[in-house]
């Protein structure tokens, strides 16, 4: 469980860095809020940037954009997806 907490924390930092969310702190990202549209207000290019993050940091390659959207619904969804699919 602690592992998932750590993963969540570092993922949030990586999201902030990768999407250049200047001035935002990890605590400000709600675990369950949608990342796209409402919530953080990210768009389709951000989703591509997040896929790059998943591939580079966790060795997860998402081929299908639709699956990508699902995996990145919220921070919690991403953490679960990473835990299930990571190769590094």
């Amino acid at each position: 469980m602690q592992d998932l907490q750590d993963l969540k924390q570092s993922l949030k930092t990586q999201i902030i860095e990768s999407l250049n969310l200047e001035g935002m702190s990890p605590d400000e990202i709600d675990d369950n809020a949608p990342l796209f549209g409402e919530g953080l207000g990210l768009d389709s290019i951000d989703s591509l940037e997040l896929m790059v993050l998943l591939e580079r940091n966790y060795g997860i390659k998402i081929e299908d954009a639709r699956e990508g959207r699902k995996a990145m619904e919220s921070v919690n969804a991403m953490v679960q997806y990473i835990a299930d699919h990571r190769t590094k």
Partner: protein
Amino acid sequence: MKPLYIISSSCISPQNTFDETVLFDGNEVKTAHENILSCIEPDYKGFINPVQIRRMSRALKLGFSTAIDCLRKSPVKEMDAIIIGIGKGCMIDTEAFLHSIRDYNETALNPTHFIHSTYNQLNGMIALDQKINSYNVTYAHRGFSFEHTLIDASLLIDADEAKHVLIGSFDEMTPEHFFIKQKWGYWKNEITDSKALFLSNSPGTLAGEGYGFFVLGAEKTCADQVSILAVQTLYNPSDEEILQAIQSILTAHQLEAASVDLLMLGNNGDNRQQHRDELLTTVLHEATPLYFKHLCGEYDTASQFGFWLLSHVLKRQQIPESLYHPSQRSDSLKRNQVCTTIQ
């Protein structure tokens, strides 16, 4: 062509031009640092919101801010067209994407640099932010990219297809691009002070960059408005063709060569390219030659900076000391007539 009236303008350059008064009121001239003149960045907060800014590179931030500033200064907000000229495009994004292709062996690449390397990005960003659903085009034609925005605006206004047009141009200088062009002899070998550029008598020039936007209108909105009466580009012209073109522009506007007061020269201090200046100063013999490339450096769309300067000189009827050749004395501007910029 019908006259194009300059309704508003904004310029970010290596000089303090974002505040239009500085070049005219003070004599403060920024000089090149190691042969590069870099733009003075404004506080972007007033122009770009935090969501937009996080993915924008420096060139897009500078270009976007200039365009928004120009639109804010314009009493007219409804634009019928956005036309932008760029010589090299967003170099920093192009370079970053080339590097990432190599560094990551063509896998897991960030798309943002690629998107921003497309020439029409700024066109799209301005249209999106200002909700300008209209004619929208990007010229990418090296040294004449800016001139083609003027020509296109003129075509639209002549055909009554537009009343107000936002035009602009930009080019950025990056350390890599500077380095590569250095190899090909574009820049001066010796470190050169901007003020001494025209006294250097050596090959090469100073590198520069710049961002400029203008709202052009079909109708005069105030008494002292500066207008563009003619614009023409010549591809690899002979001296004869240059002289013919000048003559035909003058004739079309019932002007004599002697009635031209000012001649803004594109001289960049490279002693391999002085011939055109002699040709122009000979034919427009009464005109006072002015210089601008020591202030902005050399880049594809540098003529836009010269154009911006001239428009303010005419508006204010005042010539900053810094535009004269170092060996010249200042002269007061007598009449308000057509000026020719030659790059």
